[in-house]
């Protein structure tokens, strides 16, 4: 991490952030439209129904996380090695492959063409360019680090994340073979095996980057090489590989899958609790001030890690999961993880990288502060409304004499209204931040252009 390298211009990585931030903004707008379908059921049913809106929303925000995680890893990797990435050209090719594929995917949804799998709802043909792009990323990573000897933990985490994403993404397409597809229980077992580990692998990319950033903020690399950092990495890898059974406790699949999932999931508490504890204690207040904007996102993410973790651990107990499964509590957990943890962490990375890249252009603090607080408060209300709706639905699922589904949804309506309004506020908060970041980038480009 040399001074010169951190100032090195990294135009390609920056493109990833531009595209990712645009996807983030539009993805949230689709989210608002989706929430509208809950508040006014049947809205736009014949032209623009929920089965189109949901994938538009999900894919946009999933690619926000993936593109920005790639950009962050690529940037931090170059700061770590002090050299340019092995091949900026490959990275550029990867960027174009991803962008074109994402545009085609979003257009295919608008035309009503689906692959119809959860999360990756696009036609399977689009998986091919994603895999190719991902292999380019893997090559770039391995060639840039050259060897594994005496590498800090985040390098291990990034490599693990890239390799396992590739594997689990391919695994999630095994349903294309009749052997895996022709029984629903088999199909769903493999599907959630792959999805469970896939989330773990992109978390490896993101958590690895946060460890890098915290080391950078604290000015010491001690943690990244420590024994405890590696122990926790191995515990994380263990979870990535074996905890996925907690997604399918109610599926009539092998019971050993569920038992393994349950046992392994219970180790998660140690993992993250310890990570947070170490991060914080290694930071001195003065240095915190220096990187203030990025650090603030890390702080928000810390709080969300706690909330999400408590919920996740509870939901991983089968006897509790049987209540929460299939309810909005699962959604609350996902939103806590993808917005509260992933998005806040990524915004921390982008803020930090832009600060190094565009030192002459300061982001607008007024908008930043407003956006930060609106997003945090709105996210909390959003999360509570989902938990509330989930509790009511859980009661309904368990009640002896169930009222009709439609009547139950009617009872949840007040929660959906709160969810919708807080969703709008959340979007406004994030749009402020996105606006600040994109403007910072544009102004910097203008300045270099004028020079």
């Amino acid at each position, binding site marked *: 991490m040399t001074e010169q390298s951190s100032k090195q211009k990294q135009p390609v990585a920056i493109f990833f952030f531009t595209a990712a931030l645009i996807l983030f903004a539009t993805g949230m707008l689709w989210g608002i439209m989706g929430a509208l379908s809950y508040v006014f059921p049947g809205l736009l*049913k014949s032209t623009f129904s929920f089965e189109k809106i*949901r994938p538009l929303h999900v894919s946009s925000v999933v690619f926000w996380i993936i593109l920005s995680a790639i950009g962050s890893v690529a940037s931090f990797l170059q700061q770590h090695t002090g050299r340019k990435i092995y091949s900026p050209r490959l990275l550029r090719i990867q960027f174009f492959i991803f962008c074109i594929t994402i545009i085609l995917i979003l257009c295919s949804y608008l035309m009503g063409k689906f692959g119809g799998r959860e999360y990756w709802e696009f036609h399977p043909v689009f998986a091919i360019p994603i895999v190719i792009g991902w292999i380019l990323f893997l090559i770039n990573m391995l060639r840039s680090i050259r060897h594994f000897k005496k590498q800090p933990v985040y390098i291990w985490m990034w490599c693990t994340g890239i390799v396992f994403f590739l594997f689990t993404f391919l695994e999630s397409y095994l349903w294309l073979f009749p052997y895996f597809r022709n029984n629903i229980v088999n199909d769903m*077992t493999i599907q959630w095996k792959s999805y469970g580990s896939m989330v773990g692998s992109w978390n490896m990319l993101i958590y690895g980057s946060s460890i890098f950033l915290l080391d950078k903020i604290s000015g010491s690399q001690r943690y990244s090489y420590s*024994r405890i950092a590696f122990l926790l990495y191995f515990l994380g890898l263990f979870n990535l590989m074996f905890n996925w059974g907690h997604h399918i406790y109610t599926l009539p699949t092998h019971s050993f899958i569920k038992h393994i999932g349950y046992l392994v999931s219970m180790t998660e508490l140690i993992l993250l609790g310890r990570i947070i504890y170490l991060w914080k204690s290694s930071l001195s207040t003065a240095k915190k001030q220096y990187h203030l904007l990025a650090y603030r996102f890390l702080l928000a993410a810390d709080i969300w890690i706690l909330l999400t973790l408590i919920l996740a651990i509870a939901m991983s107990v089968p006897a509790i999961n*049987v209540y929460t499964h299939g309810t*909005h509590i699962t959604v609350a957990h996902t939103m806590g993880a993808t917005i509260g943890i992933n998005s806040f962490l990524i915004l921390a990375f982008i803020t930090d990288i832009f600060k190094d890249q565009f030192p002459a252009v300061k982001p607008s603090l007024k908008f930043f502060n407003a956006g930060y607080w609106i997003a945090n408060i709105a996210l909390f209300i959003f999360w509570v409304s989902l938990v509330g709706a989930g509790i009511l639905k859980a009661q309904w*699922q368990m009640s002896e004499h169930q009222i009709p589904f439609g009547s139950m949804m009617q009872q949840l309506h007040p929660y959906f209204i709160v969810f919708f309004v807080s969703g709008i506020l959340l979007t406004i908060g994030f749009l402020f931040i996105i606006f600040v970041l994109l403007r910072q980038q544009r102004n910097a480009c203008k300045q270099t252009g004028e020079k």
Partner: protein
Amino acid sequence: MVFPEKSKLLLVILLLVGFITYTGFIYKDLPVTTSHATSAAMEGKALWQQKNCNACHQVYGLGGYLGPDLTNVFSKRGPAYISAFLKNGTPVMPNFHFTQTEIDALLAYLKNIDHSGTADPRKFTKHYDGTIE
């Protein structure tokens, strides 16, 4: 205190071997080997995916939240009731303008799912160690 390089390698290999064995075992011994779907049911599954029913409906509690879980809809409601829904849509669910063959395929698929088990959370026994049956 640092982690010896050799132990890192050893642990990664150990975990990888475990993961590959676990994965291979599950692929080879899939949970259900007895019942396989008819071709009509497989066509129904393809339609289910092409129309993205999953965006609104769940199977075994996984999927969307706008509509009801459909795992056991076949035994609960029967084919005539389901056909009526599929022919006309509802105030929320669009009318997909299915042909009769397509409706039959979807019915075969829903029947197939229904036979695989029950998704009703009330049917589980909860134990004090946190497990369920």
